[in-house]
């Protein structure tokens, strides 16, 4: 981060501001998995001098973070919204565990799906798991709420969810540093505390009671002195809002009274009730699911929500004006722009061209290569979630008649395979379809989609230093796959086509690793490799 500074102010993205706060708070470890719009947090944290690392996936990242916080230190774990699905298993149980340090989990949601496969609203996770949640509305709050999240986590010995959205993560706004003082981090330590940390049923039952009790205390604290803000304006219109929607609200209705919620779980229900009673018309303006409005109504607060059409996509000032005006007529559609495409010379191009020529049924996955679904390739038939290519492909093989089953191929990228494809490969070996199966790993030497991050198969750390390396061909062979091929499809397309045909024809299992560096990353990769060789000379 090389931010312009002016009288101790900097112009930072929300992601950069979170990283700066983590650094200022002496966070000992930042971990996560790259995912738009969260990726820049750990990259910036590392640039500032923090210890940051990419985990193979979000579940592992959160587990590492839990360990750090049990050891009495401060951890920040970052991911995009769908990453929290992967990390949901540890999330629900760490809520029951007593932490000695701080654990801040950043969930970067993507309403409108600028770069995601769904627009799930992760505020629901806070409620479902019983984890307190803060929602910043700009970079200043991203900075301050990260610090507050650490404070809250240490005060209640519980994990805290920092829920951001694309426009908070990626907008640059002004940040004043050092606005909140928090205690110095404590040295790490360990003490046995079986009932608080070992969630066997006998210990988890009282832990669940403890959690509900803590949440009640947090709710009272939030009502009394939480990071919420009341702006007294007109008595005729009151707006309850949070996150980026607050900014649109201030623009669309500068005269309205506003209750801006900074901590949105557990909610300051009594404050919301008083606010609603103090104005003639009270309405909730929130992006995504009707989360705040449902909670308010459940508590018996009479409050308006938005029409259903505003559940889809991002809000903006224009849409907030429409909501306030009760206008749910069809909205003007934006002119269609030019869709992204696989780069000219991208090594994935050859693969999808050939899969199309062979009329394959392709179970695809998440990465740049998802663009293989678009013309001229149209060589991807399914995309569900990270790693699903393999399981979905196997299911298709089990269910389709043999002539069609034989055309099914699973295609997955290198980082995605490490993230959650390995267990799919184990399934392939353990429950092989009668027609066999073909897995193609597109290994372009980088996590290209999110901006060229390293991953365990590149053999380099987040900071591009040399480290242990997962070798796909060795892994596949060690699991008992006999047909393992490493090829560069772009170097010899006809040979690649013949190989794919051969793999489709055999009832055995095949893994083809299509290896060629991403064009955009190739130069940096050569540079990293050269540095490494020099160090070893």
């Amino acid at each position: 981060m090389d931010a312009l500074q002016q009288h101790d102010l900097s112009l930072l993205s929300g992601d950069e501001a979170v990283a700066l706060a983590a650094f200022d708070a002496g966070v000992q470890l930042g971990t996560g998995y790259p995912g738009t719009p969260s990726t820049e947090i750990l990259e910036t944290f590392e640039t500032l001098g923090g210890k940051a690392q990419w985990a193979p996936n979000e579940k592992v990242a959160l587990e590492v973070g839990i360990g750090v916080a049990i050891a009495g230190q401060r951890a920040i774990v970052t991911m995009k919204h769908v990453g929290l699905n992967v990390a949901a298993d540890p999330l629900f149980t760490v809520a029951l565990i007593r932490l000695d340090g701080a654990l801040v989990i950043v969930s970067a949601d993507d309403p409108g799906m600028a770069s995601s496969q769904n627009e799930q609203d992760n505020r629901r996770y806070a409620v479902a798991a019983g984890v307190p949640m803060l929602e910043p509305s700009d970079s200043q709050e991203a900075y301050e709420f990260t610090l507050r999240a650490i404070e809250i986590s240490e005060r209640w010995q519980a994990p805290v969810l920092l829920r951001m959205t694309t426009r908070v993560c990626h907008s640059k706004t002004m940040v004043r540093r050092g606005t909140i003082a928090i205690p110095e981090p404590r040295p790490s330590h360990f003490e046995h505390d079986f009932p608080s940390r070992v969630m066997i049923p006998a210990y988890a039952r009282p832990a669940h009671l403890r959690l509900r009790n803590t949440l009640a205390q947090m709710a009272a604290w939030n009502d009394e002195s939480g990071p919420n803000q009341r702006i007294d304006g007109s008595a005729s219109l009151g707006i309850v809002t949070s996150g980026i929607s607050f900014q649109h609200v201030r623009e669309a209705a500068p005269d309205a009274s506003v209750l801006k919620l900074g901590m949105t779980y557990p909610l300051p229900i009594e404050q919301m009730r008083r606010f609603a009673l103090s104005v003639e018309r009270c309405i909730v303006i929130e992006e995504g699911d009707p989360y705040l409005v449902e909670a308010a109504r459940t508590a018996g607060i009479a409050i308006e929500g938005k029409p259903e059409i505003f559940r889809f996509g991002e809000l903006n000032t224009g849409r907030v004006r429409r909501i306030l005006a009760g206008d749910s007529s069809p909205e003007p559609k934006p002119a269609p722009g030019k869709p992204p495409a696989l780069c000219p010379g991208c090594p994935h191009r050859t693969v999808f061209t050939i899969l199309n020529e062979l009329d394959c049924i392709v179970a695809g996955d998440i990465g740049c290569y998802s663009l293989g679904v678009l013309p001229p390739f149209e060589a991807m038939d399914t995309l569900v979630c990270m790693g699903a290519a393999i399981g979905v492909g196997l299911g298709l093989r089990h269910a389709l008649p043999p002539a069609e089953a034989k055309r099914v191929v699973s295609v997955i990228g290198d980082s995605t395979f490490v993230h959650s494809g390995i267990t799919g490969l184990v399934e392939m070996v353990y429950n092989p379809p009668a027609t066999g199966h073909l897995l193609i790993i597109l290994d372009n030497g980088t996590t290209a989609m999110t901006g060229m991050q390293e991953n365990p198969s590149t053999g380099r750390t987040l900071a591009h230093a040399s480290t242990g390396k997962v070798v796909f061909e060795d892994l596949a062979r060690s699991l008992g796959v006999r047909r393992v091929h490493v090829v560069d499809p772009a170097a010899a397309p006809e040979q690649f086509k013949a190989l794919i045909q051969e793999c489709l024809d055999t009832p055995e299992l095949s893994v083809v690793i299509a290896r060629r560096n991403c064009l955009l990353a190739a130069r940096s990769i050569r540079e990293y490799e050269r540095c490494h060789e020099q160090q070893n000379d």
Partner: protein
Amino acid sequence: MNSKTTNVVVAGLGGQGVIKASDILAEVAFASGLDVKKSELHGMSQRGGSVSSDVRFGEHVFSPMVTRGEADFLVVIAPDQVDVNRAALSDSGVLIETSQIDESRLPNKKSMNVALLGVLSRHLQFPVDAWIEALKRNIPEKLHEANIAAFSLGRDK
């Protein structure tokens, strides 16, 4: 500069320097002591698709996004992206496009983004030094000369 918020949309295709141009503009406004917000969507920006970035500055800016039909300036680096983004512009807004630059005089074709900032700079009241400073901060040193020339081409024409 009056207290009204100025709304600028910079648009083009991935790889043309849309984000770079909006970074430079935001820094110029920031260095001039104004409140600034800047917003765009990342993720697909290097895959050649449409990219646009909103920059807003003034005494106090709330939303980071320019409301459709309220842009004071629309700067478009790719000719075929003008129609895609035209709806952003207000009725009295100013369109700044590549036809305003003599491409044969651009020292480096990739600096069209900066040349268009030069055109934009004529409409704004920021000192030229602030622009040059921001250019230098955002562009590698070996490209400084070419980009300052591109900026001047847009500003001085």
